[in-house]
């Protein structure tokens, strides 16, 4: 009944037995789903006794190559993976439930920590959804939108750099990791100058952004741009023509367009099949329809194409960043928060005597001159603004795919329900489709090309 592979080198991976209906009598079937690890282990032992050499290998939550706390349960026949399943939830933080007990503005600090490599995307998507519910989408000042686009695109580059860097590291190329992280440091320097933090910024707030960019930001970004380009060039040189790299990535982790659409996979994985679906083009937000950029696609639908695609997206993002800088100059002096004082986050932060806190001018204003400003500040920080009832759905083009935010408001100061459709959560479903039939080593490469960030997967 079973046909063993001879394991000849260069033999294409193929099924180890002829197709058999799953429910025909006498056919042992092994289905891995949640909560039945013991049963699987017992079945595997029984199968081994039948002479079929299937091993269940657990690439457990603690693993250097699984991009975070992901558990991969692989059933292996020799070196070929016959079944691959993911176990997730090892980083589940209950962020969505926690947001139901915080005000709308405080929700930003929570949602930012979901996918921690692209925090500004979560923040922006959430704030856009809140603004939709408030009805102030058109009142958000242009400068705020430009700053949001600038930060998001820089974050996209940083996120892709981590993906490429850790991907290279998982394949043994540590230099790729150090180069990628050094390039990322340039971007983190800029983030720190603008938001005060390197990661998890809580910078984008409903109505705009928390504070304006520093006056020398354009200079900083223009100084960093050629450095980042140089590092991206180095990454390209290290990876794209490297025969070992190509040998490991070309033809691996193939997922066709039909597979992607059925599994709801978006982002670079979908674009590597040739379909140019990008939320920035199909349903623009923050003024993306006014920017000039291309959406890179590839046709191979394998891991190598996704790497090429991510590098190309970094260059496109740098192009958008240059356009943002021009617009920042043009909109200098504009506010970065919506005009309605009952929603706009009041504080202007500055570095004070104790290294933090509100700027002295702001304190002088609320304590000295304007009673309304004091009341607004107090009410906004303690109670928060109220958002009219309804639901809103907002998607953004996250580096990993399409991030969706579903907000339900009951008219109060807190979200009634905040749900984040994280792209990594969805894309991880494709692991089975990508890895089954391939080699164990290809599992690592395929998962790396999906680029899951387990904080977003588990929320």
């Amino acid at each position: 009944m079973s046909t063993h592979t001879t394991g000849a080198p260069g033999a294409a991976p193929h099924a180890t037995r002829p197709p058999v209906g799953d429910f025909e009598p006498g056919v042992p079937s092994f289905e891995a789903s949640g909560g039945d690890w013991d049963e699987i282990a017992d079945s595997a032992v029984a199968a081994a006794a039948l002479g079929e050499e299937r091993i269940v290998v657990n690439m457990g939550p603690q693993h250097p190559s699984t991009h975070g706390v992901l558990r991969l349960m692989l059933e292996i026949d020799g070196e070929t993976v016959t079944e691959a399943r993911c176990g997730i939830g090892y980083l589940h933080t209950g962020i969505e439930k926690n947001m139901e007990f915080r005000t709308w503005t405080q929700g930003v600090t929570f949602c930012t920590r979901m996918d921690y490599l692209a925090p500004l995307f979560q923040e922006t998507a959430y704030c856009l959804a809140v603004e939709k519910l408030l009805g102030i989408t058109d009142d958000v000042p242009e400068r705020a939108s430009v700053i949001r686009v600038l930060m998001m695109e820089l974050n996209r580059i940083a996120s892709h750099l981590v993906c490429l860097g850790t991907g290279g590291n998982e394949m043994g190329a540590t230099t790729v990791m150090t180069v990628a992280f050094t390039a990322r440091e340039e971007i983190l320097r800029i983030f720190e100058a603008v938001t005060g933090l390197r990661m998890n910024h809580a910078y984008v707030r409903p109505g705009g952004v928390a504070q304006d960019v520093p006056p020398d930001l354009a200079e900083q970004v223009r100084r960093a741009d050629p450095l980042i380009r140089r590092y991206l060039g180095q990454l390209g040189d290290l990876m794209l023509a490297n025969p070992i790299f190509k040998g490991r990535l070309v033809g691996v982790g193939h997922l066709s367009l039909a597979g992607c659409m059925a599994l709801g996979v978006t982002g670079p994985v979908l674009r590597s099949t040739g379909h140019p679906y990008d939320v920035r083009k199909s349903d623009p937000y923050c003024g993306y329809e006014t920017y000039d950029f291309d959406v890179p696609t590839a046709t191979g639908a394998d891991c190598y194409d996704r790497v090429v695609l991510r590098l190309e997206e970094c260059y496109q993002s740098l192009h958008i960043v240059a356009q943002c800088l021009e617009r920042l100059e043009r909109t200098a002096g504009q506010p970065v928060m919506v005009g309605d004082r009952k929603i706009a986050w009041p504080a202007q932060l500055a570095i004070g005597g104790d290294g933090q806190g509100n700027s002295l001018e702001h304190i002088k204003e609320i304590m000295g001159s304007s009673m309304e400003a004091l009341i607004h500040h107090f009410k906004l920080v303690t109670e928060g603004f109220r958002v009219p009832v309804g639901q809103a759905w907002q998607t953004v083009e996250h580096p990993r795919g399409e991030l969706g935010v579903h907000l339900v408001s009951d008219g109060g100061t807190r979200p009634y329900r905040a749900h984040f459709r994280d792209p990594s959560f969805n894309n991880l479903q494709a692991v089975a489709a990508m890895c089954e039939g391939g080699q164990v080593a290809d599992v690592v490469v395929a998962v790396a090309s999906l680029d899951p960030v387990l904080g977003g997967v588990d929320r």
Partner: protein
Amino acid sequence: MGIEEAPSGFLLTTIEDLAGYLRKASLWPVTFGLACCAIEMMAAGASRFDLSRFGMEVFRASPRQADLMIVAGRVSQKMAPVVRQVYDQMSEPKWVLSMGVCASSGGMFNNYAIVQGVDHVVPVDIYLPGCPPRPEMLINAILALHDQIQHEPLGVNRKEAARAAEAAALEATPTFQMKGLLQ
């Protein structure tokens, strides 16, 4: 361990100094990055904040080969047994650095899903606050750990120190009953 069975006194203190120096000089961490702090830990290992100058750039994947577990990130209820298992698999001497507020105390996530401090699961030697702590803060914590390791008593002295620490902890006022200035 034979090196520690010297009786107390001058010989033991010399061995303590030597062992402390050797142990701290190349402390190998196990890859235990969980969430955002893991990225900062990787950035600390990258070239700008080089951990290699402390001999720590080799993050061993196998806990058998590692000395230090940097719990970097929020520990969920599902992950807690895994943390404990990896800690148990590490061989003595071993230290734990809980990086970030989520690992130290549950952080901003005071809810059903997160263990409120990894010290519920493993004994922690150094707590590092921050969300996430900058790589420089991580290096500061590592240097503090190095200090701690350098001055760690061995053998008989260690048992005495542990007894003293336990007695002190049992007598101390709980935090929420303390009075006086915040410092």
